[in-house]
């Protein structure tokens, strides 16, 4: 703790301690995050699940520095986050592309903002387009791309500044089930190549299990970590792994934890919680 030492290499990718956040609505504070404690190892994939409106998206925004924490600690690689942070790339639920820009110029947007030279940013944007399989679409405007291509473009843009942490807020929720499965496999391949830490919010428990090393279950608002389930599935993973016994066993465990989170004793007792409270959970 002396004069600004370089962050210890041992520092986790993300460390949240007692993290609180509240919205002001008509002069009243509505607590959203009620003391979240979480450590995310470097190069791991964490899935956040929880009841609707529990504050998952808010949590991502606080980690990305878009919303200021009301209390507690947010650290990325050992250094605190204060304001929007280049070490964190955030992919929103919608692609949020600039419709008047080409695919290439959209991916180059963060580089342009950061003041990179035109030639350098175009070369880098071209590489990123290749990384997400859109090399041939550089000149195309987002309006002419499919929903899946647009979301891939958004991921490429989030990677432009080489963030060590990539946050994904239900990135594939607008896609059909088949495309979504394919995208999950692509995401894992991408993750293996870029080697960054990924935190993703999802409503699909099978998706969470398939992608993540750990599935973190959040409680209803004000959110806290209700359970932290380790997924014991070796990598690299394939779609066929979705049928493995360990996947359904882990998914069942998460559903049970979600049941606890919804505080519905009867549902927990009958084991019906997952199906009733998480209709999205049947996807994939």
């Amino acid at each position, binding site marked *: 703790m002396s004069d600004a030492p370089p962050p210890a290499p041992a520092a986790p990718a993300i460390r949240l301690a007692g993290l609180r956040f509240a919205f002001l609505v008509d002069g009243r504070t509505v607590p959203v995050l009620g003391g979240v404690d979480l450590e995310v190892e470097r190069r791991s994939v964490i899935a956040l699940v929880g009841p609707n409106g529990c504050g998952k998206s808010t949590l991502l925004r606080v980690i*990305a520095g*878009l919303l200021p924490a009301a209390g507690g600690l947010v650290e990325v690689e050992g250094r605190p986050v204060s*304001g*929007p942070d*280049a070490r964190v790339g*955030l992919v*929103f639920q*919608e692609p*949020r592309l*600039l419709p*008047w*820009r080409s695919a290439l110029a959209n991916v180059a*947007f*963060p580089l*342009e*903002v*950061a003041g990179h030279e035109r030639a350098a940013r175009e070369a880098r944007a071209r590489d990123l387009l290749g990384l997400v399989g859109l090399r041939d679409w550089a000149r195309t405007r987002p309006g002419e791309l499919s929903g899946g291509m647009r979301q891939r473009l958004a991921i490429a843009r989030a990677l432009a*500044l080489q963030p060590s942490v990539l946050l994904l807020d239900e990135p594939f929720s607008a896609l059909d089930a088949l495309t979504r499965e394919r995208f999950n496999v692509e995401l894992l391949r991408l993750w293996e190549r870029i080697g960054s830490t990924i935190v993703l919010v999802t409503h699909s428990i099978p998706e969470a299990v398939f992608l993540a090393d750990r599935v973190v279950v959040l409680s209803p608002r004000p959110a806290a970590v209700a359970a932290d389930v380790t997924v014991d599935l070796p990598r690299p993973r394939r779609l066929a792994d979705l049928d493995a016994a360990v996947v359904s066993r882990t998914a069942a465990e998460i559903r049970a934890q979600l049941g606890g989170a919804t505080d519905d004793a009867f549902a927990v007792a009958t084991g019906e919680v997952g199906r009733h409270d998480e209709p999205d959970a049947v996807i994939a």
Partner: protein
Amino acid sequence: MSVARRRVLPPLVAFVGFLATWQAIVWMGDYPAFILPGPLLVAERFVTGWVEGTFWPHLATTLGEIAVGFTAGAAAAMPTGYVLARSRLADRVLSPYLVAAQAVPILALAPLIALWFGTGLLARSIIVALVVFFPVAISVMVAIRGVDRRLLEMARSYRVTRRQRIVLVEIPAALPGIVGGLRIGITLAVVGAIVAEWIGGEQGLGVLINLARGSLFDIPLLFATLTVIALLGIALYGSVLLVERHVAART
């Protein structure tokens, strides 16, 4: 060929129909040329007016006033509209004055401006600028307010400066609305210039209308001047469209 014909033919037919109806009214009512000249007579006066060099100096004067007034009015209106869109305080403080200023007819304001600034280029450009200001400011305000907040949040996540946010996100996103305001502004600029010229001065298409109606008593010339004004409006509107297309292609 057939596409071109389909695009050109209907407006051409409508125009010929308009001229024919006009001429028919003149013939049936047997109106003298100093009440309602027919289109043929007006066309003839239009041609002689150009050949004799009657129109050119007046047109140049009017065009100059529009250029100066429109540029100044639009240049002042755009930042104003932006501030109105982004500052609730500015909106509350300034909006009543803007609306009140707009409610006062420019025709009533023009003599006052002539009293303060004379009847030269300055006074006339001020009147044009005043007329252009309101619609441009309001459309910029509405267009900036309409920019998708989610895009602004995305930009913020990449740490845009205020200048970058305005130049890279807000202006391109608001461009269609801004240009819509400029289109209204340019047509009103023509009206403003003619009104400004009515209050006095030596030259300008508005002055020519007064001359044709008054000392010259040349009603066909009056109609020919109106035709010049109408064509000027169409040409200016068209050039705004051209600029719009050019800018849209570049962003």
